[in-house]
């Protein structure tokens, strides 16, 4: 790993810009799309600190 490129200086500014763009794209696309919640609780009657998620296989 010694020959890996150095983290470019000033990259945090660009990172914040990229993240801002991604947030805007998500707002544009995802907020108009139904579904996508991870909603399956392993046991709804129990404490809420663990929640099962379903895979594509289980959802189909």
């Amino acid at each position: 790993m010694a020959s890996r490129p150095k983290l470019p200086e000033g990259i945090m500014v660009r990172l914040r810009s990229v993240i801002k763009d991604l947030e805007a794209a998500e707002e544009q696309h995802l907020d108009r799309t139904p579904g996508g919640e991870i909603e399956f609780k392993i046991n709804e009657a129990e404490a809420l600190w663990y929640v099962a998620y379903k895979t594509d296989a289980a959802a189909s």
Partner: protein
Amino acid sequence: MSLDSELDQQVWDGIQSLMDDYAQMRPSDKIVIAYTSDSRTPAAWVALACEQRAFVPSMVPMRPLRDAGFRARLAEVIPEYPSGDDRIMLLVFERETMSHNRIIKSILAKYHPDQYQVIRAINSGRNLFVTGLLMKPDELSALNTTLLEKCRQAHSLRIEAKGGTRLEAELDNQKFQYKSSRGVGVPGKFVVIPAGEVATFPKSISGTLVADFAINVNILLDKDVRLATRPVTVEIESGKLIDFDCPDREMRDFLAKCFERKNATIVGELGFGTNKAVTEAVFENSHLNKRIPGVHLGFGQHNQTDEVAGYICDIHIDLCAKGGLIWFDDAKDPLDLEQLTPSQNQHPQLVSGEDVVSDDAEDDCCGILR
């Protein structure tokens, strides 16, 4: 530590490893980065690294598990017809899930398997890059080969670990396939990271597992999963959990609830981690923890086809022990999982890898990709 300040040289090195060693990016690659919102920042890190190399990645946001618009969004950035030597490099980042597998497969079906590569990251975040990508795929592949060469010739195993694990297992290498998570791109297959594991389904297994490293569960779990100070002791008979205990009440209650699920007490996976970069358990629920060189058992959902395993389960609970010695059949000397010697031989073709239907089977240690 804020999310963007997590991007330091260590993370950057891991991203370079992803690009060079795992993806083996070429200048002509068309880079597509799909991500769920919980992995926005890691996706942005990788996008930045791509920019540094003059790639212009297409960014595709997605919702986890269900997203009616994802197919259209992804299809929009995947060229209708591949041209020349161009290759689609699809990098998918999620924190807790592995979503939309079938959609990705169907969109890429028009391409020859040599014309695309899909790398799916679960538990995307700093630890994935700093630890999970430290070992190169060829290193993992050589270690996995060592294990596979031994396991595939064996009928029975005796496994012991320092924490108190004592297990005896029988294998059926004709019936049950092996999974080899090694980060190596094989045409038509998806690579899952973090990698570093060999796993199968035991024909039978009995004894005691003392999980003294971590648990990994395919559910959302916002708790410390480390077990060093509160190991979970499991008694197993004929492939089923018959009793377990843990000194930590909260962990014990949580596991009790998990094991109440239908078929969750069945040992669905006998796994051996091979990623030597994983030495300390991470706090969060993560596949990284099951890559520790050592033995782990996955309870509940299996890593075979449902027909072969004979059951299904909606939960998969990995209980991981650190280290382990394996005696194969009547061998006098054990194989030390923490001191594996890389094999000089080619990684064997896995039976699952020859099945064109299960084109992601090689890397899916937990049976969660379908």
